């Protein structure tokens, strides 16, 4: 799902990357309006709660893409840089493509962040392997990596996907 206008070809390429990583179907479900009154930068927590739902099968996962910047979150241990947000084990995640000017170069980063947030939806936690997409996303090496999972995260996500209702 997109919250602003994106080139359909770009979205198609992103879908292909996600399909390769998870091995399950991935398709664009169109655009929904951005909820009003969230300010700029956007509050990820509020946005994920207020965004318009999409009719989907049980256990389908929805990834919302926005080109706007997300506000850093104040957490008990400090301020977390926020490039995405997910409801763990549930059905909604959000990724910001803010700062991606050239989609040719930026696709890799967006795909890796998308994979990271979708991984959280399949109950994956942060990983120890720097090559894995579930590695903490604010580390310098994260953006340079490929959109892949390590063998542990891949097996775990496949197990969860196999048990999914749909």
């Amino acid at each position, binding site marked *: 799902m997109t919250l602003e206008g994106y080139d359909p070809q770009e979205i198609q390429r992103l879908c292909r990357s996600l399909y390769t990583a998870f091995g399950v179907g991935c398709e664009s479900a169109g655009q929904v309006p951005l909820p009003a009154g969230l300010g700029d930068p956007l509050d990820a*927590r509020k946005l994920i709660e207020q965004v318009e739902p999409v009719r989907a099968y049980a256990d389908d996962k929805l990834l919302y893409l926005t080109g706007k910047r997300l506000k850093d979150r104040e*957490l008990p*241990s*400090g301020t977390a840089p926020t490039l995405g947000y997910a409801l763990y084990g549930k059905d909604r995640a959000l990724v910001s493509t803010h700062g991606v000017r050239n989609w040719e170069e930026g696709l890799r980063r967006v795909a890796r962040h998308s994979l990271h947030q979708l991984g959280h939806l399949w109950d994956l936690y942060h990983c120890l392997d720097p090559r894995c997409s579930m590695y903490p996303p604010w*580390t310098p090496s994260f953006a340079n990596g490929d959109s892949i999972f390590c063998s542990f995260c891949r097996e775990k996500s496949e197990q969860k996907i196999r048990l999914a209702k749909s």
Partner: protein
Amino acid sequence: MADSAPQFSIAVGDRVVYPNQGVCRVFNVDTKEVAGQRLTFVSMRREEDGAVVMVPTTKVQAIGLRRLATRDEVGKIFTFLKSESDKADLDWKQRARTNVDRMTQGGLQGLAEVVKGLQVLSELRPLPTKERELYDNARHLLVSEMAASLSISECDAEDAIDLVLSPPGRERPKRTAEEFKQIPAAEEEELELGGDLLSLGGDGGELDLPAEEEAEASEGEEEEEQHPPPARGARAKRGGGKPHKLPETAGSGEKRAAKGKKPPAAPGKRAAERKPRAAKHATASADGKSKRKVAAARPSKASGRKKK
């Protein structure tokens, strides 16, 4: 552990933590008759998936059921995670034993210790599958309890933990086996810890293996580090042929380094060193110091014939 009444009162609606299961909410406390005995059961539902657990009140303490951590306790966990402490034990057996104890009886602090210990260890070498699973379980339980305690989402709870463990803009450091040495060798000698003291093994008395199993396990560990017994036996029968090449495990090299042993020599060198080593063992066996070494150094039939 003996059955006893719970140390804290449990009422309907309370949120408790069941070790290794996660946060549960009590929805019923009632008395039931089971096998002619009237027992009071605490029924609780796991928040994550709604699974129902019933525990007799007499077993509550024994299984380690506890209240959800308070905000202050969570604050202490962040302080602990920030600190430069808790290097995991390089001895896998000791580490596994400690981590099992921490998971079941350690509370929130125990979970944090497992997560931090294994994360630090992973900076030395990749974790084996079992420990990777343990790490994932511990992280999952830690995140869900922190999220419940602080009334925040799991996403925020995990990010709060990782802000401390992997601060933004910094890569995780690479560690060396030297850093994991808890007590320097010199100090250890000074302490002169006897076998009795070492075998106490902290609080985990229940998990201590019997002496025979302990011996077998340590023997197995040594053999794992060097050569597997069938290959060694076969080689001895053959009168020493081509050395049986084994894949070098990530851990064995570090253990060797930690114990101050020499790193493994190149295959060619190793073959060249074999004869002098056998001679050394033979001397040791003559003194009657080590039975294992005697067996290893016993000359094969083939070599005996050659001498004649």
